[in-house]
């Protein structure tokens, strides 16, 4: 149906987790202070819709003991213009599932925001949503566990999901 307004239309969601996701990112049983990067995405550029205007990010985790309220799990994104995993990445990222060696690499990445942890939610799911503007067509997420607890030891309970949104403009 034709519309007379410009809006955003969603692309396919990309997921990062230790198993079963689009890309591998093993955040299972990640000790506190651990930093993990995921595999580099395929291109965010859609053959028809072009470059996305916004990335919607959903980060969720469970931890093994109730965290202190207000502790955080920051999420970062590293953007790259190169499809090859290890090429032209910020922050020394490898573009594959791996530990990030040092927190001083993180300022080269884009801080998306943190999951602000609840004590009351205990070992249940803790989930937060974010939106950022993409900087390049390939993206690598990074998860920093500053929760004070080890993340869940169950498959698929710490997940990062990115959904690109594309601008759609009606043609008269």
């Amino acid at each position, binding site marked *: 149906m034709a519309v007379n*307004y*410009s*809006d*955003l*239309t*969603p692309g396919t969601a990309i997921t990062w987790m230790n198993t079963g996701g689009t890309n591998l990112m093993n955040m299972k049983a990640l000790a506190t202070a651990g930093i993990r990067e995921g595999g580099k995405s395929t291109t965010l550029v859609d053959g028809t819709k072009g470059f996305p*205007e*916004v990335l919607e990010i959903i980060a969720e985790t469970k931890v093994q003991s109730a965290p*202190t*309220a*207000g*502790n*955080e799990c*920051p*999420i970062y994104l590293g953007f790259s213009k190169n499809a090859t995993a290890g090429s032209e990445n910020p922050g020394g990222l490898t573009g594959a599932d791996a530990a990030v060696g040092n927190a001083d690499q993180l*300022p*080269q990445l*884009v*801080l*998306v*925001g*943190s*999951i*602000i*942890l609840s004590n009351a939610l205990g070992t249940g799911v803790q989930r*937060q*949503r*974010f*939106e*950022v*503007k993409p*900087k390049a067509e390939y993206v690598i997420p990074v998860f920093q566990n500053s929760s004070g607890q080890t993340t869940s030891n169950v498959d698929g309970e710490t997940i990062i999901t990115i959904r690109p*949104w594309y601008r*759609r403009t009606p043609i008269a």
Partner: protein
Amino acid sequence: MARIIPGTSAIVDPACPIDWSHPLNIGLTSEWAIPPNSGWRGGQTFRDLVRGGRNAHDGTLDTAITPSGWRGGAAPGSYGRVQFDGSSKISLPAGIWPSSDFTVVVDFLVTSTSAFQGLLSSYTSDGNSFEVFVDGTTRLMAGCYGANSFTTAGSIATNTPYNLIVSVSGAVNNLGKTFLNGVNKAGSSPTLTFTSRSLATTIGKRSTGTFPLANGSWVSRVSIYNRGLVDAECKALYQETKAGNPNRWNWLETGRFWSIPVVIATGNRRRRILCAGSIA
């Protein structure tokens, strides 16, 4: 499924929150503030908006006010505030102080003026430090208490939001300018001997652990520049915290223009902080 995301113009651009072409951002080295972004407030971290290719100096809230200190509204010019409990502070990392001239900006409210209360403090007892605090009457003090300091005339009322700007400049680092809500509280200009610039620095309490802000007092923004701001700039910065006026977040709602009513130099009225929906 389709939608319009108003949030794209209502969140700070995480990759580069500061518009470096704006004249009021020249020399800005840190700005701890509370943006609307999800996950940038409510936790243990008081975010420095000077980031994106620069090493951000994020502050850390004491656990006693994490997350209870985070409050919305009631802070003109801000998306929220950090409210203190009468004993807690925010700790800032080393490396935040410029080596020569500087300006500090503090947006705050105090619920009491009957005790010494540290707003921003990098203190040593040898007189080589710098801090800004309410001095136990209704005055503000800047400099180093007991040594070279500048005291305003009676100025501070309780439960009233203030925008404080202290500008330090000149060959001998004259402590020459203290703007309170856009008005220069001129007075003496003692020479500041701020030579210990790598000490711990805190918001809401003296850095050595005494003189906390009274329970219920709050801070919504602290900025540091590596230069002395001129009078017009001090007045312009006040505009973005003025109750009822357009403020530094209001453009987030109006989309694409910066609406500070004060014209700086060449007539800029652009936004000072970039949103994710910014169009260069």
